[in-house]
């Protein structure tokens, strides 16, 4: 008899007997489901953060920052912007202008709708070239665009949901100046949906500033990045750093996502250890309950390998539905669930990739939980086991 047929015969027999041990087997399924649900929910937060930032991962967008400064603290004069616009590799718009957008970024405080209190919100200043760059993702969902020179602003979908006085037609007071909300936008779930935006020069004037904080650049192709970066960073009149937009966001969030991943895997890991003990218990009693059957099989010529494989297989058969159940729970409860963190709200994201991670974990739990009992099953002394009651 071939090994495969042996394994098939024993496994089929084991699995057919599963319903008779439903209670104990269910413990493993519930245990695995809980671990995977908790772990995927925690990891889903990190995925959501990443997704919201990298939703438009365009390899041809670059950002120029003052050296050593963040997006909020940079300082660019008009002359600096003109210097940057002369660098090679920049795309030109239909009118022939280089697609370089000086950007303003100020932090304003807005009143929350729920629970009172205020949060810091990014107030972006941009312009018509900037709008052209964002065209592929950013979309007005209500009202109209702001007009340069007037105190008009448009608000992100998430900001509108979170803060007071941001409905189209409302007037909101920022640093003593009233601004009219003329439109609302969505940005494919990106982090900018938490911001509000207006014309860059109008923002600077209203906040008594003379310099832009950063400069956005549309490259003519992703390959031009190196050329552009070298030209700008070697220009002695500029003290700047150049980054791909996506890389800039990644750097900003690196420590946060690393922390979230650590928490997810740490909690998941500790819980998984507990579930392994539970799975071992289940499989030991499963082997115990079938002592005589196993001994009979060994007596009529079935090999030890077939017995080992069949026990492991049973353990996996319990773990995998547990993982699927857990993943389904995490998905149903938390996919697209909005969570607020650091004043910014993200939609949690239980991705297929995470479900695969969950499945792999469940397989590992199943294998470890089945291994020792499987070895015991194969080593049962046939004569004693046959006599067992």
């Amino acid at each position, binding site marked *: 008899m071939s090994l495969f047929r042996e394994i098939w015969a024993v496994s089929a027999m084991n699995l057919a007997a599963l319903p008779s041990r439903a*209670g*104990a087997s269910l413990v493993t399924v519930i*245990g695995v489901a809980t671990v995977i649900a908790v772990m995927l929910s925690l990891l889903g937060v990190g995925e959501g953060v990443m997704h919201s930032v990298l939703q438009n991962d365009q390899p041809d967008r670059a950002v120029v920052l003052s*050296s050593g400064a963040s997006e909020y603290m940079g300082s660019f004069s008009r002359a600096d912007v003109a210097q940057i616009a002369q660098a090679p590799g920049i795309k030109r718009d239909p009118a022939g202008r280089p697609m370089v957008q000086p950007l303003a970024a100020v932090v304003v*405080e807005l009143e929350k709708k729920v629970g009172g209190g205020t949060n810091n919100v990014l107030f972006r200043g941009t312009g018509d070239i900037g709008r052209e760059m964002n065209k592929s993702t950013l979309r007005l969902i209500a009202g109209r665009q702001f007009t340069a020179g007037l105190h008009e602003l448009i608000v992100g979908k998430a900001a509108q949901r979170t803060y007071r006085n941001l409905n189209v037609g409302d007037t909101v007071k920022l*640093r003593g100046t009233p601004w009219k909300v003329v439109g609302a936008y969505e940005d494919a779930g990106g982090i900018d949906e938490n911001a509000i935006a207006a014309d860059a020069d109008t923002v600077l004037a209203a906040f008594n500033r003379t*310099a832009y904080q950063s400069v956005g650049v549309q490259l003519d192709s992703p390959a031009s990045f190196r050329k552009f970066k070298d030209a700008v960073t070697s220009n002695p009149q500029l003290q700047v750093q150049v980054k791909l937009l996506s890389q800039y966001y990644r750097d900003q969030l690196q420590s946060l996502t690393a922390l979230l991943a650590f928490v997810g895997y740490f909690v998941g890991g500790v*819980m998984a250890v507990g*579930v392994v003990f539970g799975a071992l*218990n289940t499989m030991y009693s499963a082997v115990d309950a079938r002592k005589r059957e196993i001994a009979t099989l060994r007596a009529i010529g079935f090999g030890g390998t077939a017995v080992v494989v069949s026990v492991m297989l049973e353990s996996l058969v319990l773990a995998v539905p547990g993982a699927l159940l857990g993943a389904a729970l995490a998905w149903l409860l938390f996919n697209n669930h909005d969570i607020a963190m650091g004043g910014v709200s993200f939609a949690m994201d239980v991705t297929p990739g995470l479900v695969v991670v969950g499945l792999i974990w469940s397989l590992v739990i199943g294998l470890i939980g089945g291994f020792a009992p499987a070895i015991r099953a194969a080593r049962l002394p046939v004569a004693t086991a046959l006599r067992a009651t």
Partner: protein
Amino acid sequence: MKFLHLVWAGVWRRPGRATLTLLSIVNAFLLYGLLQGFVSGLGSTVADTHADVLITASRISQLEPLPMSQLPQVRMVQGVRAAAPIVIFHGGFRTSQPINMCGFAVDPDSFAAANTDEVIPPADIQALKNKRSGVIVPANVAALYQLKVGDRMPLKSYFWTNHDGTNVWPLDVVAIYKSNPRDIFFGSSLLVNYDYVDQGRTQSNGTTSIFLIRLTDPTQGSAVANRIDALFANSPDETKTESERQLAADSIKQIGDIGFVVSAIVGAVFFALLFSVGAVMMQSVRERTPELAVLKTLGFTDGAIMSLVLAEAMMLCLFSAAIGLGLAALVFPLIKVGIGFNVQAGPVLLVGLVLAVALAIVSGLPPAVRGMRLSIVDALAGR
């Protein structure tokens, strides 16, 4: 009490299974202890703040500077004992090890006046005053980079560009002070001279990030805060003054609702554990049906059998929970050293034991009822 031995023997009847069950309960309580300890530590960082400290920042955000011309006005406000301008000067050192360090640029004289509880020794502040490019380094940072007094420490500022066009600020270590992880502002921060930073930076000259204010009477905090903010209302630089305690509570709230997340995780863990312990207890009672029947034959009442099974569950859960919570308690001092949280061990452990009792009752009750309802004749006959 005289049945203690019987109960203990019942727990360990199947040593392999008992050990595995014990380990899974230990594991759950260890996780509970760590997570809940972390939450209680977060709460205690708020409780550790100074009651008599107010922070005045720009109404717009803490990144927005305030003009130094406000300082004399703030000092005149009734109830203000001392006010010190502080410029945020966070940065990194030796970028191969990207460790984010908190730093503040202070004016030594006004800082000394506001340093009422002498977190920083006055002699160190005097040393800073004597050296324009000086920096006072907390002991933990000094140990990390093996710095000693007299060393040069080029700091890469996150915010400020030096007039040479780089963001590197050459600093000289003038003193090392004992760090205190419980003081969120000055427990482990670098301190440099305000003049050195302000005259060297290319923008925001003549401004400060915040004013640190010490009160004459800690109970008057909100009244003083209102007075300061009223002073600058409708000016181009409106202020927002909050107590240090309020700021600490807000910054924790900004991270998200950690308490809820932890309760949800702990809830899920115990939900799974309930089934696992319940199944083990049920199986153990089922296997011992004949033994329980013998006990009943010997005159044990139904109630006694029920208590016996419940006591077994209780012993298993409490014993394992004690080990798990004990292990967590061993880690608490590490949390304190690592992230400066002062864990409230007492309440965490007490609630843990209550959870263990609840776990024992809920998981032990069904098998206990089963044991109670055994009919002697059927049980002995193996039916």
